[in-house]
């Protein structure tokens, strides 16, 4: 099992965004999280990444018990949130190479990731602040691809991408899966998402059900 949650509760202030979520994810799956706005999808992804304290229940991700130590799991996951996690004052190339230096990726990896996400030479020398919304999302995805994580956690990864970018992303996620990674992503574009996913989970009111 890559991730197994049992009755997990995650609380913001006093609001239980996850109210007893239980599910399991096996290696090599591409799992879609669907559900209405405010259901708890983002919370679930961030909890998987070890970013949120588990108030109750047990959560084990990649062999790390999040109730005991949330930090161990972080080195092994890649997370793309609603925000892009970029530095607007740096260029695209500077942003990607910053993250790649932190994890020791090669220049070749960076080159490949930028090509996959269609970041041309002109764009890579542009400051992120001067990009269009979709170009920014592409840049964020490129930093994630460089990371080659074991578990990919993606929050509405298709948002803002044009149709070519969506296809490219789907291809990348599939090939990451083929190379042994596991993918969990949230999405509201059900058709495309169900096409990509091997399994889908529904989150409603902080509870997860199999679809």
């Amino acid at each position, binding site marked *: 099992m890559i991730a197994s949650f049992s009755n997990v509760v995650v*609380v913001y202030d006093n609001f239980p965004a996850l109210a007893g979520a239980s599910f399991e994810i096996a290696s090599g799956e591409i799992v879609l999280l669907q559900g209405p706005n405010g259901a708890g999808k983002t919370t679930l992804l961030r909890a998987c990444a070890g970013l949120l*304290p588990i108030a109750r229940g047990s959560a084990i991700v990649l062999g790390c018990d999040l109730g005991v130590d949330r930090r161990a799991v972080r080195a092994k996951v890649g997370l793309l949130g609603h925000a892009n996690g970029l530095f607007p004052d740096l260029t695209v190339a500077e942003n990607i190479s910053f993250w790649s230096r932190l994890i020791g990726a090669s220049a070749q990896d960076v080159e490949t990731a930028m090509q996959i996400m269609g970041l041309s030479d002109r764009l890579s020398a542009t400051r992120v602040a001067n990009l269009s919304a979709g170009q920014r999302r592409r840049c964020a995805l490129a930093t994630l691809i460089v990371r080659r994580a074991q578990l990919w956690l993606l929050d509405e990864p298709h948002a803002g991408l044009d149709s070519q970018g969506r296809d490219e992303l789907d291809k990348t996620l599939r090939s990451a899966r083929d190379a042994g990674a596991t993918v969990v992503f949230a999405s509201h574009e059900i058709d495309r998402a169900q096409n990509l996913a091997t399994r889908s989970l529904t989150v409603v009111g*902080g509870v997860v059900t199999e679809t």
Partner: protein
Amino acid sequence: MSQVSQETSPTGTRATQAIGVLALAVMAWVVASGLLLTPQDVVQGESVRIMYVHVPSAWIAYLAFVFTAVASAGWLISKKHSMGFDRFAGASAEVGVMFMAITLITGSLWGRLTWGEFWQWDPRLTTTAFLFVTYIGYLAVRRLEGSVEQRARRSAVVALLAVLEIPLVHFSVVLWRSLHQGATVLNPNGDVKMDDLMLFTLFSGVVGFTLVFIWLVLHRQRTMLLVDVADNQGLDLAIVARRAEGPAN
């Protein structure tokens, strides 16, 4: 995980009752002796009687902050991360802040009598004020949102750093030339220049304030436990409400 027991008995026990009674008795003696029995000071006259409150409260505040630091270290080091340590640290800091406030208030009253001013920009006074503010900050950090573990970890770090300010306050009279009284009692040479009864009353004050401190901390950390229990029960209700948003819609 917080070790929250579901019991909701009163915060007092036989032991705390005993401590409370003892504290009252000692404090009664300090008041009697401080106000009636001890002599006037040659220089300071009647105003010297403030000392029996001022000095012990300062020392007990130090003691409280040291306890906070020790409990915080205990939380960080212990494998189980027992929340008892954290509650103890918090309770001790709160009581310490109260004693520090007493020091500041009695000090300024005393200052008005001896220097003619409530406040002087003197190193001891200034550093004491900074120490006070530091622990206000500590209490503010405890109130930040987040889980109990987050609260414990953050505040433990702050507590361990804040306690380092105590030597600064204590030695400020040496570091900077100061208007404030130098180390009269706790001086390095060990020779105390003070009337025997005055000294005894002062130490009774220290003992009495220590008992009050222990009594307060024990109760406070019990109420903190009860607050955590109540929060936990509130969470149960919130979870039910949240789950109700579910498949129904």
